[in-house]
Structures are given as structure tokens and as C-alpha cells.
């Protein structure tokens, strides 16, 4: 009887507490999901650079041209027409407190670039730049760049990089390069060009088939595969590395069979590559110091196209272990292989973005197209369609662009597009068929002297 009473008391107490807690949360706040924002280009004002001589005035125009071209390439910014400016330039300065923000907010400028250029000793120039958030009425960047006159363009690219970094917190791409394999010479050689397709240079002269270039993380070296002949005239595909600092070439791997598809680890200590000396093409990791290799995959199908994640912990790759080639991921030690793609007849060349997305080329209808997905294979987006074959996607270091090859005009050329598939622009001209573009990281600043 006593026990029953206790049980009932406990039950009543529990019910009372339950009621109390329901009451405690009954004043739930209403919730609104505001929804997707409208996307806008950021409006910049870049008034004339203050100069001290006709020479510097001419140079300042070159700086303006480079910076505005760089930022326009990003497809994120737009420059206000100078005819809209209302500030009296003769009375306004470039440093804080020497001008009125309202002169710029009034015409819709969100960010303002104030600058001066002066002649310095030893044929150098000094470019002083101040960038302001006009609506926030604060300075977000102030730097002085000193460089020889013949490196004016590099200096302008460096400033544009800093400006993008200050605005977006992402690295600028204006000093990056794109390597590729082109056949204009009749053979296939490695070429490189600026991010925007300018300043094309031939890197290799093997008079053979050089393909599958890969940049080292510091952008000072370029690995590539080459058709060679070993003893007794046996054909082989070896792996080489071009060093831009020393202008030298070294052989990295010449095991029997395929030595191809190299990808430097983000820390630059290892290369992931495909080797076939055991018979079946498998992915290995090679220590660049010791040249020792470690087998990462072992399957009945072929395993190729390794691509590192930004943190170096995972690798995406292509495997035919389940029949048709599909994209997989695994840990960098070879464990935990997971299949990511199931659709299409052939999925190839995955590339991992710094924003943790994987792009790949997929044979889906009657052609290859570029797709983007999460690292777990979800949320697949198609980025190209009905424009010939689109292959070899590779991410820009800031994750905003994809460079790829396409035969949409007949010949294979290199193109770039925004990560959402918009703003497609052709980069390669007159180089024959070009494939396998690879985007470098921003290099160590090359300006002679950068003063912060």
C-alpha cells in the first residue's frame, strides 16, 4: 500500500514537472526564413592615380588598366564610370581624413581605391594604395609597392591580389599560371600561360608526347609524364619534373609501364601517381625526398587520376573496380575507399576545390560534361551542356573558377568558367589541341620590394 502511494506520488510529480516544462517552452518565438539574397556585383571607384610627372602618369594608366582588367575577370566587381565622380580631386587627398566618404557613397561606390605613383631611385617606381570601405567609413587596405619599371605589371597584379584578399578574404589569382599539354608543334609539349590566357610560354621541348602536368604547391616546379623509350627500345611513360627556379628537368619515376597522373600533396612532400609496374594500374604515394613509394589502391580494375583534398587528408580518384570508371575517395593512406558517383558511363579526372567541392568530367549522354558535387557524392550539379565535350576540370586556387578543355569549336581548347557554370571564357588560341589544364597556386610575391 505504502509502495503504491509512493509510485503514485512520483507519477503525479513527474506529470506536474512535465506540464511545467511544456509551459516553460510554450512561448516559442515565430521564425522567418528570409530566403536567398539577391546577388550583386561590388561597386568600386578607382579615381585617377596621383602622379608627379608625365612618365608616372603614363605608368599609372598601365596600372589602372591591369587592375581593372584583373578585377573584371573575377566577374564580381564593377567599376564606376569616372564621369559619375563628384569629388573635387584637386582638393581631396588619398589618406584618411583628406576626403569625404559622402562624395563616394552618394554615387553608389562601395569601395574606393585612392593611389599615388612616384618615381624612385634606380629606375624604380613606388605605388601607394589606400582602399576604403565607403559605407563603413574605414580603411581596409594601405600598402606601398616599390618595383622596377619593367615589373610594373607584376606590381599591379600584386595590388589586385591584395585588394581581392582584403575584400573577399580569398587569395587573388592574378599571378597564377595555367599549365597544359598542346600539340601545335606536331608533338605534344607542356605550355603555360597567365590565368587569363596571356603570355603563353612553351615549357618542354621533348619532341615527344608530354602530358598530364601538375604544379607543385609553391608553383616553382611542374611534374609531367612523357612517352620515352627504355633499353631495347621499349616504350614507357615516365614521370619528370621541371624546376622553374633552376630551369632544370629531373626524372621522378621511370618504373616499367605507366608513371603518370601526378598530383603533389598540399604540403609538397609527396606525389600521388598511377604506376603499372605490378601489372594493373594502381595509385601510389611517392615520398619526394626518399623516392620511396607506397601502394594506396589494390583492385581488379584500374585506379587513376588521384586528386588531393585541400587539407591533404583525402584523395579522390577514378576506379573501374565496379565495372565502369567512377569517382571514389579514400584516406591519404589508402584506407576507407568510398564510391561517390553512380551515374554515367565514364566519370573521370576529379579535382578538389579549396571550398570542399569535387568537380569531375562525366560521360552522361553522348559527350563528356563537367559536374560538381559534395565530397560525399551528394548534390551533383551539371555545369556544362550541349557544348561539345568538356573535360579535364581543374579548380582555381581561390575556388571561384574551373579551367577545363572543350572541343566546342572543333579543336580542343582551354576554357575557364565560374564555379556555377557561368561566364565561360576561352583562354587558349593558336596552340593546336590543348588538354589537361592545371591551375597553379599564387606564387611567392615576385615584386622586388613590397613595403607594407
Amino acid at each position, binding site marked *: 500500500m505504502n509502495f503504491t502511494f509512493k509510485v503514485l506520488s512520483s507519477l503525479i510529480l513527474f506529470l506536474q514537472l512535465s506540464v511545467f516544462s511544456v509551459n516553460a517552452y510554450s*512561448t516559442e*518565438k*515565430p*521564425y*522567418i*526564413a*528570409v*530566403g*536567398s*539574397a*539577391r*546577388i*550583386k*556585383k*561590388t561597386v568600386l571607384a578607382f579615381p585617377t592615380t596621383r602622379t608627379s610627372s608625365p612618365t608616372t602618369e603614363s605608368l599609372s594608366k598601365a596600372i589602372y588598366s591591369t587592375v581593372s582588367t584583373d578585377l573584371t575577370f573575377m*566577374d*564580381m566587381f564593377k567599376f564606376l564610370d569616372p564621369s559619375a565622380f563628384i569629388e573635387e580631386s584637386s582638393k581631396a587627398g588619398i589618406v584618411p581624413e583628406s576626403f569625404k566618404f559622402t562624395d563616394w557613397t552618394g554615387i553608389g561606390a562601395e569601395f574606393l581605391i585612392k593611389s599615388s605613383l612616384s618615381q624612385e631611385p634606380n629606375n624604380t617606381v613606388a605605388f601607394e594604395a589606400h582602399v576604403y570601405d565607403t559605407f*563603413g567609413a574605414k580603411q581596409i587596405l594601405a600598402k606601398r609597392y616599390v618595383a622596377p619599371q619593367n615589373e610594373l605589371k607584376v606590381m599591379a597584379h600584386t595590388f589586385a591580389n591584395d585588394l581581392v584578399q582584403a*575584400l*573577399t*578574404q*580569398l587569395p587573388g589569382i592574378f599571378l597564377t599560371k595555367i599549365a597544359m599539354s598542346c600539340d601545335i608543334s606536331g608533338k605534344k609539349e607542356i605550355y603555360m600561360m597567365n590565368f587569363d590566357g596571356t603570355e603563353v610560354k612553351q615549357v618542354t621541348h621533348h619532341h615527344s608526347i608530354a602530358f598530364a602536368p601538375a604544379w607543385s604547391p609553391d608553383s616553382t616546379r611542374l611534374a609531367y609524364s612523357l612517352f620515352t623509350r627504355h633499353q631495347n627500345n621499349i616504350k614507357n611513360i615516365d614521370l619528370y619534373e621541371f624546376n622553374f627556379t633552376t630551369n632544370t628537368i629531373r626524372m621522378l619515376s621511370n618504373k616499367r609501364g605507366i608513371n603518370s597522373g601526378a598530383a603533389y600533396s598540399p604540403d609538397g612532400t609527396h606525389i600521388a601517381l598511377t604506376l603499372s609496374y605490378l601489372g594493373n594500374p594502381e595509385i601510389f604515394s611517392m615520398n619526394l625526398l626518399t623516392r620511396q613509394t607506397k601502394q594506396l589502391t589494390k583492385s581488379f580494375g584500374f585506379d587513376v587520376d588521384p586528386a588531393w583534398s585541400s587539407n591533404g587528408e583525402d584523395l579522390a580518384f577514378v576506379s573501374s573496380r565496379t565495372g565502369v570508371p567512377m569517382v571514389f575517395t579514400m584516406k591519404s593512406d589508402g584506407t576507407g575507399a568510398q564510391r561517390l558517383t553512380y551515374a554515367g558511363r565514364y566519370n573521370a579526372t576529379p579535382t578538389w576545390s579549396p*571550398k570542399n567541392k569535387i568537380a569531375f568530367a562525366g560521360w552522361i549522354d553522348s559527350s563528356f560534361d563537367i559536374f560538381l558535387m559534395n565530397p560525399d557524392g551528394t548534390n551533383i550539379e551539371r555545369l556544362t551542356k550541349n557544348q561539345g565535350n568538356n573535360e579535364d576540370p581543374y579548380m582555381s586556387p581561390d*575556388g*571561384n573558377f574551373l579551367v577545363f578543355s572543350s572541343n566546342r569549336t572543333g579543336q580542343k581548347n582551354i576554357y575557364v568558367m565560374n*564555379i*556555377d557554370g557561368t561566364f565561360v571564357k576561352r583562354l587558349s588560341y593558336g596552340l593546336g589541341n590543348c588538354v589537361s589544364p592545371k591551375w597553379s597556386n599564387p606564387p611567392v610575391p615576385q615584386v622586388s620590394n613590397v613595403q607594407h
Partner: protein
Amino acid sequence: MQIGLKLPDPPPPKEIAKPDEMVIKPTLKSAQHQHKLVENKNKQALQRLKALAKIQGFREEPTKAHQIPIKGNKLSPGTSLSDDAKEGAEAHYLDALRDRLRENWNIPIWLDRQKLNATVEIRIGLSGTLQGLKFVKPSGNAQFDDAVKKTIQLSQPLPDPPQELKTSLVTNGILMGFPL
């Protein structure tokens, strides 16, 4: 000898009455009875009408008395709606609020590509004035959070809350997800 069969004589035809002939015509007696019934019914109807008229008169009399401001006899306009009506008013207001915010909700491309999300709580005063704003879940990106703050500030004055939400929007506030 002649053998002959003699058919029996056909039965005499039955008299089949036509339907109208089946109606029994009222006799004089029954016609008098019917007349009485009608009279009774009319009498009853008149009595009912008179009774109804009396009742109506009784109801109309107190109308003058209604004009006397006696509190207990008067329906108040009310301070709350039924649950359905209240929910309808709330939903309508939240839609208006979201529409106002969307007019000013824009971000640069690079922020959009980062797929950021923030949740803020705001309190709204009686005439739609912003009484308070705090980030319940910041996005982790200062520029994005600034854009959220700017959107709310630019959207002032916010829509005037309906009567039934005035108190709760000041005291409890409202949660808003940018974008979800």
C-alpha cells in the same frame, strides 16, 4: 349421329373501371366536414400569428433599454481572436515582414558562394521600430553578418505588428534565418 363439340359460353366481360372513375366523389356530408377542417386551420393560424405578434412586441420593447450603458448587458469588442484567426493574422504579418526584409537582402557574389547561414533574433516595437537585434547563430563571416545587420536596419520601419502580436514581438522577439 352427329358428334359435335360445344364450346362453353364465354364468361361475361368484367367491368373494368377507368382510374378517374375510381375516385370516390365526396358526398355532401364529407364536403361539410372538409370545410370545417379548413376553418379550424385558419383559426389556428390566426391565433399563432397573434401569439407571434405578441412575442415580437415583447422583444422590441427592451431596445430602448439597451441604449442605457449597463455594462453587464453589453458585448465587449474583445481583445483576442480565435486561434485560427490569430494564426492567420500572425502568418500575414510574418509574410509582410519577410517581404520587407527581402527588399534589402543582397550580398556580394563571393559571400553567396560560401553558402553561409545566420540566425538573428529581433524585437519589434509597437509601431514597427526595431527594439533589439542579436545574433543567435552568427555565420562565422563578419562580412556576411554585417550584410544581415544592414538588411534589417535598412528595412526600418518594419511592418506595424497586428494587435495580437504587439506584446510578444516586443517581449519575446522573432527569429529570422538568413537565408534559412
